[in-house]
């Protein structure tokens, strides 16, 4: 089963608007990390009859804005744990809603977060099925849906 760009876009937009109260617009450019700054990637995996993963790549500044919206605190008042927790929950909400669009028995993992300047997060045996880039208050981010290659054509 293939999820469309529109399916994923609607999920991301609803998380951003309902939970974060932040505006986003589809970007007309790719996502390139500023490797001189800190960046974060939140990932959840879906296993079962359908297997894949959702990854949210964003600069730390935007993760801090999202956490600020969720905690109702100023960005510079937030600790490290709060920023990671908020991104994990954003990934969890997107992953959970993606899972809701899939037929069959599946399980959603707990979120994991990677961080650094220049890094790559891979799920071996998977390839990118949908890639969306957005701008949120001038800060770009991307959301990727990965699908296990042995079922990508199913």
């Amino acid at each position, binding site marked *: 089963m293939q999820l469309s760009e529109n399916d994923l876009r609607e999920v991301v937009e609803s998380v951003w608007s*309902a939970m974060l109260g932040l505006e986003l617009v589809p970007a007309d450019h790719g996502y390139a990390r500023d490797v001189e700054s800190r960046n974060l990637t939140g990932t959840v995996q879906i296993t079962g009859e359908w297997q894949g993963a959702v990854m949210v790549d964003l600069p730390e500044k935007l993760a801090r804005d999202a956490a600020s919206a969720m905690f109702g605190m100023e960005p510079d008042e937030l600790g490290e744990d709060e920023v990671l927790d908020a991104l994990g929950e954003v990934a969890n909400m997107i992953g959970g809603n993606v899972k809701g669009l899939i037929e069959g028995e599946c399980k959603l993992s707990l979120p994991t977060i990677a961080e650094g300047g220049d890094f790559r997060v891979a799920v071996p045996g998977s390839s990118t099925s949908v890639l969306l880039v957005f701008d949120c208050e001038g800060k770009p981010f991307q959301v990727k849906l990965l699908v296990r290659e042995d079922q990508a054509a199913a």
Partner: protein
Amino acid sequence: MRILIVDDSKAMRMIVKRHVGQAMPEAELVEAENGAQALEMVRADTPDLVLCDWNMPEMTGIQFLRALREEGREVPFGFVTSETQPQMREQAIAAGAMFCLAKPFTAEAFQDILASIS
């Protein structure tokens, strides 16, 4: 009214607390990070309502709900979860949940759920 909010995400507990606080400013809010911690809290002092996430370490929300019912504890229980598959909702209702509110939710949806049970 005493409400137990169970979620491994502190950010989500903050959001749920904010919404409950707006709808029920008089409610006393207590928190747990997972089902196991929440089960101990209910055993010690039963709340009037449990609002619970599904996916959590230690003990998931559905395991927590089943443990409560196996012990004969009929505390009103609702899920606030990103799990939106119909079969998950069926499992939740079969185990004794009153409702499943899907994340992300709007403030209106949250108020409607609380109004329907109060």
